[in-house]
């Protein structure tokens, strides 16, 4: 955590521009890099799969549909591309961006790098809502029923965790994680209950969905989560500066003019929106919201003005790559996406826990 010696030397020379020379360029470079990577990965992912389509033909078809030239493909590849691959890719991008962004916001609000929708139980909470809607066969809000239920349940869970895990304006790591365990256990029990009473068709639907997967992606599903995701992703960056100030603590943030109560309420709503968007279509996909902001913080520093939108970008990229891996690595079978992210994310979480503990000199 110490700055390189070169930096220290340049401090003496020009104090005001130190951070500028070292770090201010990194966010721009990273943003460019991430966008470029997405531009490359999307057509590649669209081409790969059980029915391979060359990347050139993918691009040609996209150009054709957008009316910029190119030619349409044959009936089958055209259908595979536009009815199977692209909805899935768009969904992966939306879910990944939502999870990454929700993770960054949550860590900012809790002032704790270990906060993440999956870890502290908000994903499970939202899942209870979604499972309820699925198991009871509710559809009075059309395709928006499941996202709406997930949102309401997710919102309740964030509020619950927030109230339970804070005392004296601080969130202790131990309390946060233990609250997460309790919430996860309770949510698991509720989901179990719904499964017990659901009919067998609903059961298999729920079980598969619980593992976390994008294999059921369709355009209607994309439309179902689009409002939640877009609203959440659009609102989040507006609060970046205030999240920076909040890292000083609630009182100092208020001293600097932040209406802390309002900020908290708005951000909890945004977190619930984003989590609901992700969970309602993809089930519980853990650790994206934990790993993504953390990696960005290591490279570009903790400033939220880059971290919040950056986490959305990297989250989208990571989930697209993970989904591509999940559906190609064991083809023709498909790994559940949630299993894959947990496989990679859990060891990372473990390392982060150890490091936080070492820093604090042990849990109290």
């Amino acid at each position, binding site marked *: *955590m*110490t*700055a390189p010696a070169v*930096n*220290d030397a*340049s*401090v*003496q020379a020009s*104090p*005001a521009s*130190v*951070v500028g020379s*070292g*770090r201010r360029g990194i966010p721009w470079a990273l943003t460019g890099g991430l966008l470029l990577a997405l531009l490359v990965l999307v057509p590649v992912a669209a081409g790969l799969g059980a029915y391979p389509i060359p990347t050139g033909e993918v691009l040609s078809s996209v150009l054709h549909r957008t009316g910029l030239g190119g030619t349409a493909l044959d009936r089958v590849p055209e259908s595979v591309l536009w009815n199977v691959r692209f909805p899935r890719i768009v969904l992966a991008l939306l879910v990944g961006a939502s999870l990454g962004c929700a993770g960054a916001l949550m860590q900012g609000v809790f*002032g*704790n*790098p270990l906060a993440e929708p999956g870890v502290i139980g908000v994903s499970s909470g939202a899942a209870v809502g979604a499972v309820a809607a699925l198991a009871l066969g509710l559809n009075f809000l059309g395709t928006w029923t499941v996202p709406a239920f997930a949102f309401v349940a997710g919102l309740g869970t964030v509020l619950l965790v927030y109230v339970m895990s804070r005392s004296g304006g601080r969130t202790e790591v131990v309390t946060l994680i233990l609250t997460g365990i309790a919430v996860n256990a309770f949510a698991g029990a509720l989901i179990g209950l719904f499964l017990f009473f659901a009919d067998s068709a609903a059961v298999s639907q729920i079980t598969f969905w619980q593992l976390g997967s994008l294999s059921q992606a369709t355009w209607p599903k994309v439309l179902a989560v689009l409002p939640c995701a877009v609203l959440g992703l659009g609102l989040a960056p*507006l609060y970046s*500066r205030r999240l*920076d*100030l909040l*890292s*000083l*603590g609630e*009182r*100092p943030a*208020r*001293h*600097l*003019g*932040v*209406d*802390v109560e309002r900020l908290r309420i708005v951000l909890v709503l945004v977190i619930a929106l984003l989590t609901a968007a992700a969970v309602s279509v993809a089930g519980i996909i853990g650790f994206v919201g934990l790993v993504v902001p953390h990696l960005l*913080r290591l490279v570009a*520093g*903790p*400033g939220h003005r880059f971290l919040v939108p950056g986490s959305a970008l990297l989250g989208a990229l990571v989930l697209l790559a993970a989904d591509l891996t999940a559906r190609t690595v064991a083809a023709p079978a498909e790994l559940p996406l949630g299993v894959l992210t947990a496989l990679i994310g859990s060891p990372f979480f473990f390392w982060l826990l150890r490091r936080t503990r070492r820093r604090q000199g042990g849990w109290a």
Partner: protein
Amino acid sequence: MRTLRTRPVPPPPARPGDVLAEAEALRVRLGAREVLAGVDITVRAGEVLALVGPNGAGKSTLLGALAADLTATRGTVRLFGRPAAEWTAPELALRRAVLPQATTISFPFPVEEVVRMGRAPHAASPAEDEKVVAGAMAATEVTAFAARPFSALSGGERARVALARVLAQRAPLLLLDEPTAALDLKHQELVLRLCRERAQAGDAVVVVLHDLGLAAAYAHRIAILCAGRVAADGPPGEVLSEPLLSRVYDQPVEVLPHPRTGALLVIPRRDP
């Protein structure tokens, strides 16, 4: 969202002697304990006011009430002529800056970023902000580690960075809770010299201190708190009396003039 609304404007510069903050018959209850039991105090522009007193006397609570962090159970706190509760957070941020007893930060922000956070209430140009930030860092002697993460600093370095952030806020009312607690001899002097400079420039500075010698040397006025009340309030020469201090601190003390400068020294009585 806030940027869409009209931003609050900074207050006009205060004239020396203007009352920037005052408490009247202020009572504050924290939990079951009445921490302040009827405090009257005025804070004037151009003046360094030191709050001293034994542990638990209510110094930090009074500072919190003047900062509009705590609400009065009875009595009133007025800031810039208006009841504390009537100000919004952004308006207050342009009027008073607060240095808490300890500063922690959840993420490893570099020092310069932490100081720049003090500029958040202002709608100034980046160049202006840059100048103020650089000035605050130079004044508190933290420029040398501007790029290091705050979390990697020592206690005394953190205290100075926190002070730099408060200075960068450029508020006319400064409320500092034990700014010298973690500092070495040299930097204690530096911080109180800065307080004097700010008062000279027309700001009001309220500073909680434990070192009565420092208070005597740098404060224009000292308020001695004891069990939630003001036991004495006035210039150092008037309030620093042996009987009063011995009673308030429950410890015999001696007050004597410095042999060369004549400034008051306060030391505990240590009989051989």
